[in-house]
């Protein structure tokens, strides 16, 4: 048997110790008040974009695995088929993609600090973290400026510190700061970058204002900054959300208004399940910026949506958008989504 070097021995010891620790945590998790949960969304999306039609069956499962009361491992994947009409004869091509949006360990350091290690959604603006879930988004398509600040993949690989810096009944101040390493292959693609986001929420006014900053540490090493303003009256079905982002080569904004008609007979009435949505957005191209994610030309788009929440966690989303750019066009979307929430075993509180 060849002799092992001191370094190899140390590495193997560390792996065994980590495996034993993880095993112990999993054992204790079975009797913990918090049990693992599988949740997420599934759906069938269809879109006709300027004459090109495609259909996408999607499953986006989320795993939440608590390891005691201070550590949570969580992950979300996006498994997506693409059926696209192509060619003059109307033949259908099919393909399949999968992506890992986050796989992270959250360590609760104290009441103000949570350390996140692994792959996480890039915290620039709030659309990426809050509204990209299949069953949450009111409009199927992401905003035009979504790529600004979230390139290259919308996810980052590294470390993030975040939490509630100050909280009272009058004001909440939250922060997020992160560093990501570059990775250009496989499911863990990410850009080398560092950034932060600060948001202030005023509960009595139902108003949230925040700012984001990112310094890209590869290629051109340019800065991107942004701001978001949300007004979401708690006693109403009205939601007004907006974001602005400014990159080195492009900038733009979106404003989205939605209103759940719950005042007409309640949330579960026929009318109360309806939700009209309107989004206005513009993006401006200052200079060519390959890979910044914004449209290549100045673009203006108005989206009109009408959603219907069905019983049993199903939801029907429909929308029409008119896009004004170098080539104007119409975008028609329709999707049916389902939200699921499954405990892995019985137990807990």
């Amino acid at each position, binding site marked *: 048997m060849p002799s092992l070097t001191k370094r190899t021995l140390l590495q193997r010891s560390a792996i065994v110790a980590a495996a034993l620790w993880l095993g112990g945590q999993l054992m204790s998790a079975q009797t913990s*008040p*918090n*049990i693992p*949960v599988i*949740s997420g969304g599934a759906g069938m999306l269809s879109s006709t974009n300027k004459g090109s039609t495609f259909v996408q069956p999607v499953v986006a499962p989320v795993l939440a695995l*608590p390891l005691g*009361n201070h550590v*949570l491992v*969580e992950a979300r994947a996006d498994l997506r088929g693409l059926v696209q009409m192509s060619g003059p004869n109307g033949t259908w091509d099919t393909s399949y993609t999968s992506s890992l949006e986050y796989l992270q360990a*959250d360590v*609760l350091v104290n*009441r103000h600090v*949570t350390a*996140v290690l692994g792959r996480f959604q890039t915290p620039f603006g709030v659309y990426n973290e*809050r509204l990209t879930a299949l*069953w*949450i988004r009111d409009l199927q398509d992401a905003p035009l400026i979504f790529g600004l600040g979230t390139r290259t993949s919308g996810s980052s690989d590294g470390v993030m510190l*975040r939490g*509630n810096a100050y*909280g009272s009944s009058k004001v*909440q101040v*939250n*922060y*997020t700061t992160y560093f990501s390493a570059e990775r250009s292959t496989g499911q863990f693609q990410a850009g080398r970058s560092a950034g932060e986001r600060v*948001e202030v*929420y005023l*509960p009595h006014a139902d108003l949230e204002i925040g700012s984001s900053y990112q310094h890209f540490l590869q290629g051109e090493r340019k800065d991107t900054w942004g701001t978001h303003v*949300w007004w*979401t*009256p*708690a*006693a*109403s079905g*009205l*939601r*007004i959300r907006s974001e602005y982002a400014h990159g080195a080569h492009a900038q733009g904004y979106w*404003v989205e*208004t939605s*209103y759940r008609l*719950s*005042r007409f*007979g*309640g*949330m*579960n009435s026929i009318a*109360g399940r309806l939700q009209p949505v*309107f989004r*206005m957005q*513009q993006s401006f191209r200052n200079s060519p910026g390959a890979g910044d994610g914004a449209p290549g030309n100045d673009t*203006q788009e*108005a989206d009109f949506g009408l959603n219907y*929440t069905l019983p*049993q*966690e199903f939801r029907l989303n429909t929308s029409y958008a008119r896009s*004004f750019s170098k080539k104007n066009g119409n975008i028609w979307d329709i999707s049916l989504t389902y939200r699921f*929430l499954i*405990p892995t075993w*019985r137990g*807990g*509180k």
Partner: protein
Amino acid sequence: MKAIPTVCLLASLFGGAVVMMAQAGADTKNSAQPKARAKAHTSSDPGEQAFRHNCSRCHSAPEQLSPHITGTILQHMRVRANLSAADEKLLLNYLAP
């Protein structure tokens, strides 16, 4: 053509303002929150308020939420929504009393 987005934006804001005015004084007794369905929006339940301020800003409540998984969901949301310790406690008591 360039005036179209501006007009749409103003229409959106105007529409929002009209809806808010129409809402004023209306009976808003039905909400998306689990326990709130049978309560008025004016409820002073701090857990319900915490739900509206932290959760409803982004999504509606699930139709059913088993008490078995509430702790895990809150651990998940503590990170995602930067919940304060006080709000996390209020939400736990509200969702799994």
